[in-house]
């Protein structure tokens, strides 16, 4: 019989072979695993080296930082030359604010700071007071921005009932008409509700509240805060880029929700109209929409349509475009919800709007936050198109300064557009990282 051997104690684990761990192991596994891989690595390294070198030469080593005019930005004969950052520095204020008057710059500054202060806690999932915060950001902040940037003092006259002109063209008319309309609606509900045999107090109360909010907003917009009125044609630069992007997203969200609900609706006319609206604006390029807004809005309105300024026309176009895309994003969220949520809400006896507002939309919207952020990134990039219809956003302002006769040098266009590209990259890349973070953050909540 042969002897046998049973090990009674565990052997210590051996160290992994040298060629499998550490830098050597990593290199062998990832970079030099086969002849083809070696070739790829070498070619890849070469391409990266050339790209990084060319970029670094342009941005740092050959760049000019202390020029006072275009002549000093020119490279010496035979030199490759680089960016001329003095050009950007000289016009930097214009790139941020456009031609906004210098003594009034505190107004856009407040808008920027307030926007950041409201937005940052909104983006952090753990920050408290989400409801108050989003109300401030999505409702109060836009009006504040509007008044601060433009100076307020809008003429708001009556528009509901054309033949009543009690107070002439003043806010009095607006308030008067608003109260008449509110009273009429309340009376109708009261009598109607009585004959149906139902208590309509809460409905009436909410209508009065809405009317009061409209009145307050109207009064705010039409009152004079002593701010100098600044026409939108001298707004410009990054300020306009932000105004277009944020207006587009803030307005497109509610419209998009309504359209998405309409597209899911069982009522054929409403469904058809929503589908046509969404598919139409999604089917045509944004530039044609902006062009249409620019040329057609004055034609569509009764006389005096030219009073709608350029920026407002573009904003209308951008909002229509963005809301069609937003509707599709929201629809994705609505479709992702299991049918049981709808059935559960209905079996509790909730009405359609109660079901949507209390059960469906909070869940659906939470699901599509990454989609909304992605739509915003797309919209943010698309704001550059407004320069084609003559609005000086960041790109338009940079393009205008490139044509400035004082600053003409060979790599001027390159310098200017690389700067614009860099600004957009920082913002869009940051937002896309945030979207990925949100996706992961939301995902954990649903995994079992």
């Amino acid at each position: 019989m042969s002897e046998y051997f049973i090990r009674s104690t565990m052997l210590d684990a051996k160290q992994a072979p040298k060629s499998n761990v550490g830098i050597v192991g990593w290199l062998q596994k990832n970079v030099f695993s086969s002849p083809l891989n070696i070739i790829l690595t070498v070619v890849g390294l070469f391409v990266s080296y050339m790209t990084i070198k060319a970029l670094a030469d342009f941005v740092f080593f050959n760049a000019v930082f202390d020029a006072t005019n275009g002549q000093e930005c020119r490279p010496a004969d035979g030199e490759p030359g680089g960016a001329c950052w003095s050009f950007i520095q000289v016009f930097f204020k214009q790139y941020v604010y456009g031609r906004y008057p210098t003594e009034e710059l505190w107004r856009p500054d407040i808008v920027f700071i307030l926007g950041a202060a409201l937005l940052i806690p909104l983006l952090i999932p753990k920050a408290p007071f989400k409801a108050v915060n989003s109300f401030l950001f999505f409702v109060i902040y836009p009006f504040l921005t509007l008044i601060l940037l433009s100076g307020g003092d809008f003429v708001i006259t009556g528009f509901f009932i054309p033949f009543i002109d009690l107070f002439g063209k003043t806010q009095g008319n607006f308030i008067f008409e608003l109260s008449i309309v509110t009273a009429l609606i309340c009376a109708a509900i009261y009598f109607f509700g009585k004959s149906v045999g139902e208590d309509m107090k809460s409905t009436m109360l909410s209508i009065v509240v809405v009317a009061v909010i409209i009145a307050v907003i109207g009064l705010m917009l039409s009152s004079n805060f002593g701010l100098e009125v600044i026409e939108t044609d001298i707004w410009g630069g990054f300020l306009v880029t932000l105004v277009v992007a944020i207006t587009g997203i803030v307005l497109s969200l509610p419209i998009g929700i309504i359209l998405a609900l309409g597209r899911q609706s069982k009522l054929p006319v409403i469904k058809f109209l929503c589908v046509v609206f969404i598919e139409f604006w999604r089917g045509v390029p944004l530039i044609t929409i902006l062009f249409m807004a620019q040329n057609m809005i004055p034609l569509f309105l009764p006389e005096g349509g030219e009073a709608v300024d350029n920026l407002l026309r573009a904003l209308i176009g951008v909002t229509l475009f963005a809301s069609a895309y937003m509707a599709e994003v929201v629809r994705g969220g609505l479709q992702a919800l299991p049918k049981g949520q709808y059935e559960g809400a209905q079996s509790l006896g909730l009405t359609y709007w109660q079901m949507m507002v209390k059960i469906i939309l909070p869940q659906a919207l939470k699901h599509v936050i990454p989609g909304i952020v992605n739509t915003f990134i797309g919209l943010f990039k698309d704001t550059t198109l407004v320069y084609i219809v003559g609005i000086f956003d960041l790109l338009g302002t940079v393009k205008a300064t490139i044509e400035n006769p004082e600053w003409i040098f060979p790599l001027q266009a390159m310098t200017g557009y690389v700067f614009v590209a860099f600004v957009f990259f920082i913002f869009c890349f940051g937002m896309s990282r945030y979207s990925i973070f949100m996706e992961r953050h939301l995902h954990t909540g649903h995994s079992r």
Partner: protein
Amino acid sequence: MSSPQNSFSLRKIVYDPKIRGLFFQTILFALLLYFFYSIITNTVENLQSRGIPIGFGFLDNASGFPVSFKLISYITSDSNAKLILVGLLNTLFVAVLGIITATILGLIFGVMRLSKNSIISAIATVYIEVLRNIPLLVQILLLYYGVLKTLPLAKDSLSFLGIFFANIKGISVPTISFGSAETPFIISIIVALIIMVALRLWSRKRQEKTGQQFPATKIGFAILIGLPLLILIASGWPVEVSIPELGRFSLKGGMTISPEFIALYLALSIYTSAFIAETVRAGIMSVSHGQTEASDSLGLPRNKTLNLIIIPQALRVIIPPLTSQYLNLTKNSSLAVAIGYTDLFASAGGVLNITGQALELIAITMTFYLLFSLLTSMFMNWYNSRIKLVER
């Protein structure tokens, strides 16, 4: 107060979902009708007060708009309608070329990003993230004004390998002409393509019937190359290669591609390729590793695993977003107006500047773009229903 009987019926009416639905839809429809009625009457009034006629009569007038890049013959005394046709063809041309290039680049970078080689995948990641996050319009302007418009004058053209030349007027490339054999050459290519498709169909049918395989792809490509070559040899090899040559002031020979076209085409291709790369990556990753393992255990060779197992399943995920990327590229080609490439939108804009017929021109442009998107979504629906997973 109404009687209980009356109240009962009223309540019944108010709470009848059918009647409610009908009521709200009627109100919405009426409001919409009023909205359209008022904008139409306003528009007619405004146009009359400005003295702009309504109608498509202006399409027959001479356009007077110069076009540098065109596929069909066109002079400034041609009609506005022809100008728009030139623009439409230019849009289709840049869109088709852009789609082909973007797909190839996207495929390469999508696969590169999945590479196990960290350096290769890092390069692909940087490429995708940088190009995706910079607005297309900025890329177009950067390429056009920043690069192509800073090239030297024709007499100092930069040359690559002595056959490509780049200057401010564009990039000159060699051309091949087939002289007398041109028409037969093109016909032979078309015939070869038809034979390829027929061969494929026949071989698939035969395989389904008998199980015998036929190398349809290899023979098909052999025909595609061989048949035109045969035609050229039979007609006495009338092939002429024209290489651009640097004269004293300008380039002679070859073909010069305009910088507008190059800027638009390249920017569209690389911008869209970044999105396509992400789509490709998602598609390949969606096929679970078990599929590869199962195919290996069946003993299928590597290329068959790829062709018969992985790619068909990945395509199911890739095709729908891919078509919408193609559509985006086509719509984005309207940014051509920023650099003066006369596409559909730019040509309509040119006519608009001269005639002021905003209504009709915007309608024409939007109709064409809507047509593209309608055709695309029809194709997608058809394709989706064809490749849908058939479950029990």
